[in-house]
């Protein structure tokens, strides 16, 4: 890397978002442009007038027995269910593939924290008698990816990233590298997040409910990546291909222009730009594409730290075959990411 060939392809997608469970409601939302945010109940933060992106129609027991569902935190439920959807969408027959060659790399924002809060609340209010050991394993942010790997038997690379609003993109970059290095044949990547009253109360106390905590959302967006040759060999349908990926960590004062140039690279003008995180709020990014169609999933579905997963799924769903797309993501205080996509199967070199 930096890589320019489009030899890594997207063969499967999954989404559970405020638009609904599955790809169909997400596609419908992207086409209609209808905002799926809903009023946050007053009791959540003790204030009216806030919106949130809650996944209302998701019932874990539609996908697994109640006893099993009880052992997972909400973010893990999203990840376990969506990973199953992504595997199915990609036409992966786990029985015939080497599971040590299938990995899962996710971005996860607040996953694990609701369990931490519940565990600590028990201790702070009732001492050691009120500690619930079952809660503790899923206090870690890697619980969603790891639970998904356990449930689906994925024994390949398994890594979780958190980097503010670019958590999913951080995982995506690593997924590209691991496929190039042939550490895995297939990687499920993207982002998962959950919204919980205590997180929103935290945003309130930090004065962020009308800034970065505004319209906070939850859900999961996953992409199945593999090398083109591998996908073709197993007869997979190719949804899109992925070109170069670029990132910078910060934009230090006085050298912002250099940073933006490094982020953009030599990429050709795209037909569609997907803005994620706070990228749509940054003129240094938006002004480069005045006449290009823009997709801003966060305005329809809300923001979360791992929103890049749903945003990249949205981009792939929105790209026509042969169309070039650009995914741009940014966070307050960095980092910044840019990924080139190409709709449909890539042109053979």
């Amino acid at each position, binding site marked *: *890397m930096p890589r320019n060939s489009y030899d890594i392809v997207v063969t499967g997608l999954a989404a559970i978002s405020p638009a609904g469970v599955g790809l169909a409601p997400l596609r419908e939302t992207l086409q209609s442009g209808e905002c799926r945010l809903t009023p946050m109940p007053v009791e959540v933060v003790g204030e009216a007038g806030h919106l949130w992106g809650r996944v209302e129609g998701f019932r874990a027991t539609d996908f697994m027995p109640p006893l099993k569902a009880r052992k997972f935190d909400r973010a893990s439920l999203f990840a376990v269910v969506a990973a199953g959807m992504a595997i199915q969408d990609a036409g992966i027959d786990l029985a015939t593939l080497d599971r040590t060659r299938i990995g899962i790399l996710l971005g996860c924002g607040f996953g694990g924290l609701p369990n931490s809060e519940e565990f600590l609340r028990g201790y702070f209010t009732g001492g050691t008698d009120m500690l619930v050991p079952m809660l*503790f394993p*899923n206090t870690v*942010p*890697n619980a969603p990816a*790891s639970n998904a790997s356990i449930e689906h038997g994925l024994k390949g690379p398994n890594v979780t990233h958190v980097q503010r609003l670019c958590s999913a993109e951080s995982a995506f970059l690593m997924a590209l590298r691991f496929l190039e290095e042939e550490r895995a044949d297939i990687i499920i990547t993207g982002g998962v997040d959950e919204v919980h009253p205590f997180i929103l109360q935290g945003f309130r*106390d930090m004065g962020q409910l009308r800034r970065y905590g505004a319209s906070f959302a939850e859900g999961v967006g996953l992409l199945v990546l593999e090398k083109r040759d591998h996908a073709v060999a197993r007869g997979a349908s190719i949804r899109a291909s992925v070109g170069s990926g670029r990132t910078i*960590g910060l934009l230090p004062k006085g*050298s912002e222009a250099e940073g933006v140039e490094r982020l953009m690279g030599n990429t050709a003008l795209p037909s569609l730009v997907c803005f994620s995180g706070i990228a749509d709020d940054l003129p240094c990014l938006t002004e480069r594409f005045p006449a290009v169609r823009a997709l801003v999933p966060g305005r329809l579905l809300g923001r979360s730290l791992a929103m890049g997963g749903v945003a990249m799924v949205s981009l792939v769903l929105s790209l026509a075959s042969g169309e070039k797309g650009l995914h741009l993501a940014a966070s307050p205080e*960095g980092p910044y990411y840019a990924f080139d996509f190409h709709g449909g199967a890539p042109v053979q070199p």
Partner: protein
Amino acid sequence: MESRKIAITGLGIFCATGKDVPSFTDSLLSGRCGIGPVDMFDVTPFPSRIAAQVRGYDPLDYFERKIAAKLSRTDQFAVIAAGEALAESGAGTHYSPYDIGVSLGGGAAGMGQGERWLQDTLAGRKVHPSDLRGLLQDRTTTAVAAAYNLAGYQGSITTACSSSATAIGWGADLIATRRLKAVVCGGSDSLSILTFAGFNSLRVVDPAPCSPFSLGRQGISLGEGSAFMVLEDEREARRRGATIHGYILGYAAAGEAFHMTAPEPNGTEAARVMAEAARYAGIPLDRIGWVNAHGTGTPLNDVVESKAMKLVFGERVKEVPLISTKAMTGHCLGAAGAIEALATVVGLRKGVILQTINFRGSDPECDLDYCHAGPKQSDTEVALSNSFAFGGNITSLVISRS
């Protein structure tokens, strides 16, 4: 693509057994245990009341008051350790800020401050909004990037106890792929009620200082701290005259897909990852002279890791010591992988296989060489450093001295 050798040009550490590399080295070689009483919060309700706490720490010895107030304890440890690594390396002033990045593994992050917010909220007291600033691991990464103007990359890996080992492997990748010319990689974590109560509730904490691979061991001793290393392409490092402490030759990171907290009992998955790490590093297994174990001191981990060693090294296993530095440093969770990688670098450079202290007696199920009697002189060139985590996330790093 031409392969690149990834050199380690700077080291930094801040933990209970040493607040810089020289003091940490002394502790490692002399077998000093950093595990002792805890006074950060009330531990009297718990069966185990000890940990490897960084004692005698005053943030104002390192930071201006205004800056310290914005950083969690975990952030502070990271800025200190990364600063030592960068100062020694000299990379920070040699390259453009956009050519240097930060790859960090985190654990509980600023949970200690978050706990204060929760206690205040539950008690109906006035809360301090800044208590939540460092709740996520990414804040520590940004604190390091901002403190040293490292603009090339910010990434935080959160795979519990293997986080910072993976962050180092990924840091090496960022150099190998020419995305960066230098990367500051490592981990940071601090003690919190969450982890102290959590591991105690699972009954995996030893009331006495942990004794990995010993008979009668009862579990881990928690710890805290931070360790970082600066990685660069070897040729660039040599060209600028940097001191090279060793090399990251490769790594592997995978999921066992077995259980959230229990390791796969036969050690087959751990063995697979260790062997994969050697393969990615291009190193035959017979070049590996010792292994810095995950070695938590839990009854299960130590048996499984010993089994994995037998699967990896076969008949040669008795010649490949498996040691645990956690008996000195405690289990530093998100920072454990980095602290142990740094200890491995120190051991290789000193020509020593490090020891496993706190021996209580021989366990028939742990029948390898654990260097319980003390460190051993060795001309070994290559060692592995293992990290296992909740979720079955395993990482193995391959480290060499030349």
